């Protein structure tokens, strides 16, 4: 008498529920994973394409760029150039996971374990997500945003709204508070506050630009120290929302919506490796447990393992389809390796990881999942053994030389350098140019000045910088300057509208 949950590859809803129950039992009772309630939705591949092009969100405002994405995905899918993901999962409470109807029952089980228990527990417990996102209100907020933007389109025309959104999207990566925590609010609250803001904001801004300073003693004071803002501002969108002189209230609200979206996605951009690694760890562990408990067949397991190994495959850099690190591969192997270090440490591990070698693996991986982002996670937990496994090597590329140099490889002298360098690769604040607003000349020509702080001599991409500046100018509406600074001196200068006589250039 076997206890198999199913034999064969077809699925139905009852079977999904049985698998979900079995997986949930293991996840919650055996491993103590803390998750949001799950909402598992089965969708067709067309709907999956829709989901792709709205960054996975179930509702979103309308914009041509989502249409572009849809058209591209649809075209490539139709021509057979790409497959669609087996699932999409949303950081919300309840945690929504989309499953494709074409999946076999094995894939559905894998996906449920991966998304509904792996990603789900990551969303709920990782410190970045806890700090930056509010899972319970995101869907509400998306609904609010969609309606608000649709309303704006009716009141002010599709083109005007589209232009504003274009400009906001160009600055989206600079719409994030990196250090301050935003407070979560609900949709109703948001709506009420939006009305209040609309009324009061315009007033404040006019106040700021008041042309008779003698009537406003407070403003006169500000004129004396003459630097506004008093500190450089990293959140460009926030600064524009609050201080751009000529924006309409609805435009400020749109900036705010884009800013909120950027903020919401910020943790996901910082935890790709960990998030996927964690989810892979759990689909692997949970499905193996199902097999060990005699709940699934050998055939199920073979299909699962084949898919699993595809997902976590890391092609070497010489492979024609190599496109950088596979976050699934790196993340999964790191979590598995932490488990190994805890359960079966060798001398090397004891030397490198004295704190965790031999400790309770479950506690340790949970601690790792909760308290790090990609950069610090790699810095903390990438072991020499894994560096050897991946055969990592570091290339230094200095434009002053006509060669590139192999700076470190997977050997005793190289471990730390490779690890540092790989961690840096996942550090968004290094990967993205460091650009801040340093001066808004509110008493003169209202020109806005931004500063790009160069690191390691890496310049901005000229064309895109000019384009983005144009968008910035559209929102600020007065002259915008961008200085690229290295070691305290300006290396290159961009202006919008472009300066009539070219100033210094690099």
């Amino acid at each position, binding site marked *: 008498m076997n206890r198999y949950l199913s034999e064969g590859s077809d699925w139905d809803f009852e079977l999904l529920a049985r698998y979900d129950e079995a997986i949930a039992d293991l996840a919650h009772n055996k491993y103590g994973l803390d998750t949001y309630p799950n909402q598992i939705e089965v969708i067709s591949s067309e709907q999956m394409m*829709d989901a792709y*092009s709205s960054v996975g969100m179930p509702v979103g405002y309308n*914009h041509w760029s*989502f249409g572009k994405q849809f058209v591209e995905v*649809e075209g490539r899918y139709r021509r057979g150039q790409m497959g669609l993901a087996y699932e999409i999962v949303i950081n919300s409470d309840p945690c929504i996971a989309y499953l494709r109807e074409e999946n076999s029952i094995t894939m559905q089980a894998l996906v449920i374990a991966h998304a509904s228990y792996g990603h789900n527990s990551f969303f709920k417990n990782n410190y970045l997500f806890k700090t930056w996102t509010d899972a319970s209100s995101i869907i509400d907020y998306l609904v609010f945003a969609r309606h608000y933007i649709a309303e704006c389109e009716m009141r002010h025309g599709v083109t005007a709204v589209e232009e504003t959104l274009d400009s906001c999207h160009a600055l989206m990566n600079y719409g994030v508070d990196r250090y301050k925590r935003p407070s979560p609010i609900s949709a109703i609250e948001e709506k009420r506050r939006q009305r209040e803001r609309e009324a009061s904001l315009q007033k404040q801004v006019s106040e700021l630009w008041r042309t008779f300073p003698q009537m406003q003693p407070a403003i006169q004071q500000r004129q004396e120290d003459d630097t506004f803002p008093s500190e450089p501002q990293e959140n460009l969108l926030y600064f524009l929302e609050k201080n751009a002189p000529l924006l309409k209230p609805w435009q400020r609200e749109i900036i705010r919506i884009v800013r909120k979206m950027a903020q919401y996605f910020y943790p996901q951009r910082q935890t790709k490796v960990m998030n996927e690694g964690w989810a892979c760890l759990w689909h692997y562990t949970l499905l193996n447990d199902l097999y060990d408990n005699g709940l699934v067949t050998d055939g199920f397991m073979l299909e699962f393992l084949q898919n699993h190994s595809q997902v976590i495959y890391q092609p070497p850099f010489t492979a024609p389809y190599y496109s950088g690190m596979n976050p699934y591969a790196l993340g999964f192997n790191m979590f598995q390796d932490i488990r190994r270090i805890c359960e079966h440490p060798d001398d090397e591990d004891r030397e490198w990881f004295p704190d965790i070698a031999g400790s309770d693996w479950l506690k340790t991986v949970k601690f790792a999942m909760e308290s790090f982002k990609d950069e610090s996670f790699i810095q903390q937990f990438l072991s020499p053994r894994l560096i050897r496994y991946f055969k990592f090597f570091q290339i230094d590329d200095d434009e002053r*030389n006509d060669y590139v140099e192999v700076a470190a490889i997977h050997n005793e002298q190289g471990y730390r350098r490779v690890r540092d360098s790989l961690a840096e690769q996942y550090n968004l604040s290094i990967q993205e140019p460091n650009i801040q607003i340093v001066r808004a000349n509110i008493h003169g020509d209202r020109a806005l000045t931004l500063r790009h702080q160069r690191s390691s001599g890496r310049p901005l991409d000229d064309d*895109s910088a000019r384009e983005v500046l144009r968008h910035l100018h559209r929102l600020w509406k007065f002259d915008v300057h961008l200085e690229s600074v290295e070691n305290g001196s300006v290396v290159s200068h961009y202006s919008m509208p472009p300066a009539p006589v070219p100033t210094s250039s690099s």
Partner: protein
Amino acid sequence: MSYIIDRRLNDKRKSTVNRQRFLRRYRKHIREAVNDAVNRRSIQDMEQGERINIPRKDLSEPIFHHGPGGQRSIVHPGNKEFHQGDRILRPEGGGGQGSGDGQASNQGEGEDAFAFEIDKQEFLNFLFEDLELPNLVKRHLEGAQTFQTKHGGIVSQGMPAKINIVRSMRQASMRRRALTAATRRRIRDLKAEREALLKQDQSPQRQARLQALEEQLARLERRLERIPFLDTVDLRFNHHVKVPVPVSRAVMFCIMDVSGSMNQDMKDLAKRFFLLLYLFLQRNYEKIEVVFIRHHTSAKEVSEEEFFYSRETGGTIVSSALKLTRDIINERYPVAEWNIYAAQASDGDNWNDDSPSCAKLIEEELLPKLQYFSYVEVMPRAHQALWDHYQTIMKKHPAAFSMAQIDEPGEIYPVFRRLFKKRMEDA
């Protein structure tokens, strides 16, 4: 606890609006592609979608990012041959084998074109954007001689044969509930009181109270019964309205000169023009018939195949074709039932004495019956007599008659657009 939901039946086309926004934004590119397609395609596959290519740089959504240059370190997996300190010549373009470079400098998007498909419907939409069939509205009203009876909602008055039973009964039920609500509530209360009394010990007061209750209940029950089951105010009737059915049939006369002076290229031009007109009419009418008439010195109705491909030579008498058109209209296409369009293509050669009679024929016998007559001259040389005579017609009947000259394939579509451009005075 998990909720498992089947969403497959939900709307699939969530992205439709976004897709349309995208098409709208890149209208210029798509229009160009459509324009090219018209001139490139053969007649048979005109009615298809089209692949649109847009250069990547036009589509880019710019963000701040690093350009090439400076110092950077990259970690790659899969080292086989390198040792620390190895130096490798930097490959140009970041492509080559064993370079280890390439990824970081590759942030910009490739220059290849962004390609996608628009379907047949969208293709035709772009093709005929801003175009309009002249005099379409006028004929709709004029030709409205057939009527159709349509359901026009529910009304409270009508003849017994049209009673809507379900709606009447629903109305009656609502009325009964509304009118009896208070009484029924009272009965419920009284019954509850009686139940309570019956549980008490027997006493004279109780008997008296029970007596009173019974009487009250009986009175209330009678009142309930007096509410009619169905009242005249409940009656609802189906309402029917007569709506005029616009004539949705059109016939298109393709008239072509096949005399010796028309060579294959000219015929091809004419053919493309006819085709565009046919597609365009198809979008406006449910049913289209096409009559092909070709002529040299005498006119003949022919099949499509023969019209375009058979070769004949001879002189040219244009009026023969116009007469044949008139006869066919009189015989087969009563003006009241058909929208009639005619398009004539010719190299402008005509037997000299014939041109005045052509003008007369068109003006007096054809134009009153036609929606629109368009004439294209497929000839690069100077105009001849026919053109001049036609021009006087155009001056007199600008709404129903138009003419243009086409020299080469590239001009067909622009000319077509000019002929059928939306006109304000027609609206």
